[in-house]
């Protein structure tokens, strides 16, 4: 039962991410993406990365996907306005993706990395431990990422604002 929990969650992630790609209705697609991210949260909990699990839950499922859903509702898209690619282009795209898959899987097989993943220190992913690393080793990148978020906010407001002369 122990190991099969991982395989169950992995199967669910792959299944729902396939549904994200192949569902016709964009709203359904976003809802499937929320479930996919939830399975990723379960993966993080299984790895005992509790901080990442909570951040994934709040930032991805709470903020980013609500933003997606909000924009989708704002644009009022539905199945009728869904643009469709020709079948030839779709088949070529799937073949290209499969070629990438075969290449990556083949290179992984060549490495023979079959050691089991074992958690050596129990508190590796806890907030206390990560905070120490984040504020000592990675202090400069942390401050730079705050500037990145500020500039992204300014850029988003500037882009989404209507031009004053064509109101």
């Amino acid at each position, binding site marked *: 039962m122990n190991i099969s929990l991982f395989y169950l969650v992995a199967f669910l992630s792959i299944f729902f991410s396939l549904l994200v790609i192949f569902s016709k209705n964009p709203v359904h697609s976003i809802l499937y993406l929320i479930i996919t991210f939830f399975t990723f949260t379960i993966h993080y909990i299984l790895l005992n990365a509790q901080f990442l699990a909570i951040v994934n839950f709040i930032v991805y499922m709470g903020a980013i996907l609500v933003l997606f859903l909000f924009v989708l509702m704002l644009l009022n898209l539905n199945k009728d306005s869904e643009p469709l690619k020709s079948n030839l282009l779709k088949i070529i795209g799937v073949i*290209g993706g499969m070629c990438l898959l075969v290449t990556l899987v083949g290179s992984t097989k060549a490495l023979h990395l079959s050691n089991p993943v074992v958690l050596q220190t129990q508190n590796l992913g806890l907030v206390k431990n990560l905070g120490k690393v984040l504020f000592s080793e990675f202090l400069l990148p942390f401050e730079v990422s705050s500037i990145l978020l500020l500039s992204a906010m300014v850029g988003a407001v500037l882009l989404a604002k209507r031009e004053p002369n064509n109101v």
Partner: protein
Amino acid sequence: MENITQAIHGVPLNNYILLSILIFCIGVVGVLTRRNAIIIFMSVELMLNAVNLLLAVFSVYHNNASGQVFVFFIMALAAAEVAVGLAIIVMIYRNTHSIDINVLNKLKW
């Protein structure tokens, strides 16, 4: 908490790598086959998440917390990227009344 982390004891590293590769390739196929700009953005998010999972797994495997800090930075970057990208999509929709990416071919030739 002890018995939860027992659940992955014995899962080979290979299986985690294969899972991430599969989800990354699903994201690539989504970018290549869909024409709705929002779905393409969602596929990019899927690819970013696959990489995040692999970074967390390697962080646990090598017993080094830097990988999980990197995941944190990637999440901050993804939030910034989504905010700017969705603003661009809203602006495109306002100008062309469509989010079909084939409308945006002015830079093609």
